[in-house]
């Protein structure tokens, strides 16, 4: 009955525990998430053309670039929300388009830029839905579901909000609830599309610290799109600067962020100094606009006069 069968040497993709050295195979990507010759387009407009990309495992990668440079589009493609026109995204060596989307959801979590919750949902209910890709219709709530949801809510400090309606939360609380849902999904890779938009500076820092903690304590691979270059430089291990659908520079922020790069990518004159707290590069834009010449000065004086009703 149990004749030992010769096991064919299947080209299995590197698994979850593959932090040990994997026998090097030709053409196999070294990292779990990568893109090859990726061309992305909306209708006729090509946004990204023939892009190659490696997302380093176990690091925080941040993609920056000016508006409409294709950074969010790229992230959407990495998370299979956008089908490539050409080329492919590889997850564990398999082409993303060929892997069932539910299976992807067990490895790769994604938080879109402006997610919409179901009407009238509570925070705990929202977070618990992150478990959906791991559940079956006859296994709707296991002990690990219970544990992982509790953990996700604890980490994001949303446990106290469990019974509140998501619609009633403040921007910062809501973002934390969404991140909790992505955490409950318990994926090794996490993609975040501008997770700090609409948040005030304290909540921005809170969210980014949370992302870094996840990475450092759990070894999660994180890819985030951020529009604040200084925050990107602070929190990224690996920075990718994009312009017009191309990667202009990538590497550790300390090496990548220079005044020259800022001029090239954003068209902005700036001075780059070490951040007084972290030592990471801090981009200080050039002097703000000043009136110059006698005509301008007169205009300024006139404006001042009208602007001060009580001299």
């Amino acid at each position, binding site marked *: 009955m149990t004749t030992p069968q010769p096991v064919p040497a299947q080209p299995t993709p590197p698994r979850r525990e593959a932090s040990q050295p994997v026998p090097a195979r030709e053409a196999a990507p070294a990292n779990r998430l990568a893109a090859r010759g990726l061309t992305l387009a909306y209708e006729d407009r090509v946004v990204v053309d023939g892009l190659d990309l490696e997302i380093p495992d176990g690091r925080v990668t941040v993609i920056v670039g000016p508006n409409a440079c294709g950074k969010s589009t790229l992230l*959407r493609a990495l*998370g*299979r*929300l956008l089908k490539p026109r050409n080329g492919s995204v590889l997850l564990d060596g398999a082409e993303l388009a060929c892997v*069932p*989307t*539910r*299976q*992807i*959801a*067990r490895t790769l*979590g*994604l*938080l*879109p830029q*402006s*997610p*919409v*919750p*179901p*009407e*009238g*949902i*509570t925070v*705990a*209910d929202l*977070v*618990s*839905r*992150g478990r*959906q*890709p791991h559940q079956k*219709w*006859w*296994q*709707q*709530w*296991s002990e690990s579901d*219970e544990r992982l*949801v*509790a953990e996700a*809510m604890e980490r994001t400090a949303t*446990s106290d909000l*469990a*019974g509140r*309606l998501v*619609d009633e939360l403040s921007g910062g609380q809501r973002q934390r609830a969404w991140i909790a849902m*992505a955490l409950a*999904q318990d994926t090794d890779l996490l993609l975040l599309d501008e997770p700090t938009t609409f948040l005030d500076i304290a909540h921005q820092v809170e969210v980014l610290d949370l992302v870094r903690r996840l990475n450092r304590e759990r070894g999660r691979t994180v890819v985030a799109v951020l529009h604040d270059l200084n925050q990107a430089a602070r929190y990224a291990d690996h920075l990718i600067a994009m312009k017009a659908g191309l990667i202009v520079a990538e590497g550790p922020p300390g090496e990548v962020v220079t005044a020259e790069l800022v001029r090239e990518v954003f068209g902005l004159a700036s001075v780059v100094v070490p951040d007084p707290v972290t030592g990471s590069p801090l981009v200080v834009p050039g002097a703000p606009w000043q009136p110059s010449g006698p005509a301008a000065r007169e205009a300024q004086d006139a404006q001042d006069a009208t602007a001060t009703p009580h001299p």
Partner: protein
Amino acid sequence: MRPAGYAVVRPGGRASFLVHRRAFAVTCVLAALLAAACVAYLCVGESFVAPGEVVKVVFGRPSPDELVVGELREPRLALGLLVGAAFGVSGALIQTVARNPLASPDVIGVTHGAGAVTVAAMTYGVTSYTALPYLSIAGGLAAAALVYVFAWRRGLHAARFVLIGIGCSVALSSVTQLFLTKGDYLVAQQAKVWLTGSLNGRGYAEARPLALVLLLAVPCALWAARAQRTVSFDDDTATALGVRLGRVRFGLVALGVVLASVATGAAGPVDFVALLAPQIARRLTRTAQIPLPAAALTGALVVVVADLLARKLFSPTELPVGVMTAAVGAPYLMWLIVRGRSRSGEPS
């Protein structure tokens, strides 16, 4: 951490089910109310029959009222129950996919497609009561399929789906009007009654195919209830949670369209049940998605109570049930919305 308001049922093995406590309680109450409404339905009519006799007839014991209750009222009640449940579930599914509380099978073409085909057939002399339901079912399915194909552009966009549905419905209803004005007076009269939705003179013959479809729909509804948990997010989030949106949405709409078409074939387009029942159910259960069992029971309750009133209010004239459904359901829904807003400031 378990989501607030849910209980976990572990029937054994590794199986586990999440049950929304309030939804479960509301469903039980609705079932009890529906049972009471059914008894009342069988009691009331041209002649009153005592509840005790009604129960006897239902359980097959001999009774002097067997003819009135068993032969006249019971078949009509059975059809009303099935039609209401089918419209309730159909509305819930279509509102879920459209992400719009105003969507219903009426909006995405089912009703008007069925109406146009049926009235056309009547005008051209089809009077066979066996052929008309099937023609109407075919009309409903075809119209919904047309709307789905028109609305498809690299995926189904919820707002486009609703707008194209409204467009097609308007076009189809003008076709109906054309046949009504063209056709002869008696046919138009008969068609009007059909278009309002009526249980008059119908019974087991119409109920049987509908019962079969509903039975087949139960396992599909188990799947649909599960899918509702993720489909009610925006497209990107749903995909991130591992949902194959295109397939799942098609499945939900197809189930909703089939239920509504078959129900329309059996009783005509009973107005507003598919629109009202899911919203009433959701407000009662306070769940984040429309609960299907509660929507089915609410739909059945609305139709049974409406038909009871339609039979009794202007007795001996029996009005078509479609005249009453909106009158029964709409004030209640409005009351729920107004009360909900004053309590928690929750948006509709």
